[in-house]
């Protein structure tokens, strides 16, 4: 299990992506799965950076675990910001993507589509978003 503690600001996106990508490369994750998990990481981290502590900033913890056979990647995003369940938003309506994109719901929709499992929990004053995906190795 790997852990990254970082200030939840957009400027740290590259560090967050490097953390995730290097761990997945180390695990031998296929390029197609790596692409999808990297994308979902960006969407969730930017969500936290944009809304959790607005207009202030605050910390985020990212936990990554690769385990099992078939191999499953688990990513958990934890922040201490205002309670916010991104999964409570309705999915965008197809054929109206432009409007939805401006509303910002598209990133969550992409994440729910690409990951096998996405869940939200509010515990001890923390937002905890966990996502899992079975990946192909090699």
């Amino acid at each position: 299990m790997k852990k990254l503690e970082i200030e939840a600001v957009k400027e740290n996106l590259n560090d967050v992506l490097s953390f995730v990508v290097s761990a997945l490369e180390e695990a031998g994750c296929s390029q197609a799965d790596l692409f999808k998990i990297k994308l979902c990481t960006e969407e969730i981290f930017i969500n936290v950076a944009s809304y959790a502590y607005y207009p202030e900033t605050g910390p985020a913890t990212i936990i990554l675990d690769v385990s099992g056979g078939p191999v499953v990647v688990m990513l958990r995003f934890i922040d201490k910001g205002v309670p916010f369940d991104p999964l409570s938003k309705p999915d965008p309506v197809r054929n109206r993507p432009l409007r939805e994109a401006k509303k910002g719901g598209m990133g969550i929709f992409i994440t729910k589509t690409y990951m096998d499992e996405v869940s939200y929990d509010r515990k001890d004053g923390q937002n905890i978003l966990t996502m899992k995906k079975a990946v192909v190795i090699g």
Partner: protein
Amino acid sequence: MTITKTQEGAKLTVAIDGELNTNTAPELEKEFETCLEGITDLVIDAEKMNYISSSGLRALFGAAQIMAEQGKMTVINACDDVKDIFNITGFVDILTVI
């Protein structure tokens, strides 16, 4: 990310090299604010665009909105991963992706 523009009359080709993400999308949006005047045929060459997030989609659709008024917009040479994002988000129904 590197943006290369090639104009032939009212046709503008914008080639994107690298990742179109939250940090780089504003640069593309800024380009679109100034380079689309008088353009009726906008081509996005995505051959070297190896990644796009929802921020990148928003930048492309800002341009699509403008081009819907004044001409057409086409995305060419996108890799399968990027095309898949256009598909699942339904953007493929709005954009011409070839």
